[in-house]
């Protein structure tokens, strides 16, 4: 993911570069409205997403009720 930065004035330090907001602004429009899968670009990102978002099946440290009763 590409992080955005912005420059801000800091007391005693002049202008500093700080991490900017990472949320999507406003309402997406056009053909891309609603499409979210392409936000994950690399294979590594996609696999990591599977392990976290779809942790119900692919997470190694899932804490759901099933795993408590049936340790992995």
């Amino acid at each position, binding site marked *: 993911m590409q992080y955005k930065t912005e420059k801000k004035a800091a007391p005693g330090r002049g202008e500093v570069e700080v991490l900017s907001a990472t949320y999507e602004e406003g309402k997406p429009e056009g053909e891309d409205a609603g499409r979210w*899968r392409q936000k994950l670009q690399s294979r590594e990102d996609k696999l990591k997403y599977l392990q976290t978002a779809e942790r119900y099946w692919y997470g190694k440290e899932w804490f759901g009720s*099933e795993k408590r009763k049936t340790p992995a």
Partner: protein
Amino acid sequence: MAEVVKKSIDQATIEMIAKAKTDECNIVFDRAETTKACPIGAEGSCCSMCAMGPCRVPLPRGKEETPEDKKKRRGVCGATAETIAARNFVRKIAAGTAAHSDHGRRVVSAFLDLAKGKTPGYQIKDEQKLLQLALDMGIKIGDRSNEEIAIELGETLIREFGKQEGELAFLKRAPLKRQELWRKLGVAPRGIDREVVEAMHRTHMGVDQDYQSLLLQGSRTALADGWGGSMIATDLQDIMFGTPSPVASQINLGVLKEDEVNVIIHGHEPQLAEMLAVMSRDPEIVAYAKSKGAKGVNLAGMCCTANEVLMRHGIPIAGNFLQQELSIVTGALEAMVVDVQCIMQSLVSVAQCYHTKIITTDPRAKMEGAMHIEFDDHHAAEGAKAILRVAIDNFPNRKKNVYIPPQKTDLIAGFSHETINYLLGGLFRASYRPLNDNIINGRIRGVAGVVGCSNARVTHDEVQLTMVKELIKNDVLVLQTGCAAMASAKAGLMVPEAASQYAGEGLASVCEAVGIPPVLHMGACIDNSRILIAATAMVKDGGLGDDISDLPVAGAAPEWMSEKAIAIGQYFVASGVFTVFGVTWPTMGSKEVTNYMFKDFEKIYGGMWAFEPDPIKAAQLMIAHIDKKRKALGIDKSRERVLYDMTMRRQLEGA
């Protein structure tokens, strides 16, 4: 007009039924009046399994059956009414499973061709889903190319159809407790084709003659559909054409355009529809349409193919099952392109009243009097263009009796399991937790899947719509697929604004916070497998029990008509879901079989069947079941929230 109103509550449908009458064109609504349903077949009391019959063993009408009467209710071979009802039911499951699974097999075949580079028109659109399935099937990922992974995945999945021993691979996606139950009951399917073949064998004359044993095989066959053929089809289609995400579009006959070449794609398999969606915008095709006096090509969907291209391309839907003939009755349809399942044979005779070309495309489904242009995945673009040219050439042949009803409604579709998970939590914390939390805190009472067909024996769309409105009014989130989804979409229930208008206060507040409609479109009938996965995610997230049968959920097919619906219902029941069907119930000829499915199934599977043609009563049955499950989970009433201090915690630990 009053007589017409009884046939549908959809204004576009009502207008087109009247137009068909004016045009002297015989349609399904007319035939439903002239061809009465056979009362003996309807209750599953007719056995035509051998040439000593057909034997009719109906329940006596207007009086209680005596034990002596019951002894006489047998076929020539001695088969009891119970065996006959169960056999007929299991054969419906086998046919439904075969339909979904043959669709699945065709998808795997196309997927393998794609992976091997034999189908230049297609590509892997969702790498993530490919990786997900590779993880499921234990296929090495590493640095291998997508195509290498896809070939191994396709070859592994195609074996699921012909597997003779073991279990279907996707069963392990189900909650652990459910998997154990299936193994204990002996209903874990071994291979998709094997279960269909065994179901057909066991229902042959003189084989399995114990209704309970027959119905166990029915469950095993149905599970081979839901957790097998259907699930394989859904997942591979996602890899090839993209996992659905929210998309805006429109629905109803008003999406047809007077000044464009109208082409409807009707059926179930999305390969051709995908290519038509792309090619209908091809400059060469658009120019050809203009050369014939049209402004362009307007592609619309019908039935479940419509759901497929809607969810992935936003292609509008012209209507559901009972509107297929009516799209021709507009007089503005140049071609109806069909593949498999739910295609009425009468399309050809209806088309003869107008100028529409009926084009069959699948070697498994030909129609007398229709034009056949066989679709070949290897030359998909050329095939799609050839079909579109036929439609364009037909544009100048439009007759004068053109009328497109103005009705069309906005909808948002594309709520796959993956998208629901994402919408509830976002990219970094995607989760079903907010759904479970809101069920636990009571804002959402439960979740219902309302699926299935439309049926000319009841008022078109009315039964589904009444049920869905009753459910959301009572804070039940509704998930929909197939033609049932289209009924809600036409009535405006599939936009976020519907939450404040139709949903109860609790459900509306959650829908507004997340920005979703109270009725979610999850896809085609094959995509009922997505509902199984969503239910499993709810279980695995925790807090609502250990199995699907613990969840406050219910299912329904209020206007069902096809054997596929029976297969779907049975795999939901065998997965632990209370499922209500409307219209008619095909085992009514045997009280034992019906009671077994309506009562005893709950002890066996945790889910059971019910029949209730009245949509309000059916919705109330579902709500009562949801409330029963809420009570069992201890979430039926709000509890006082107590902030524990350290002393209280020590006391708790010491207890």
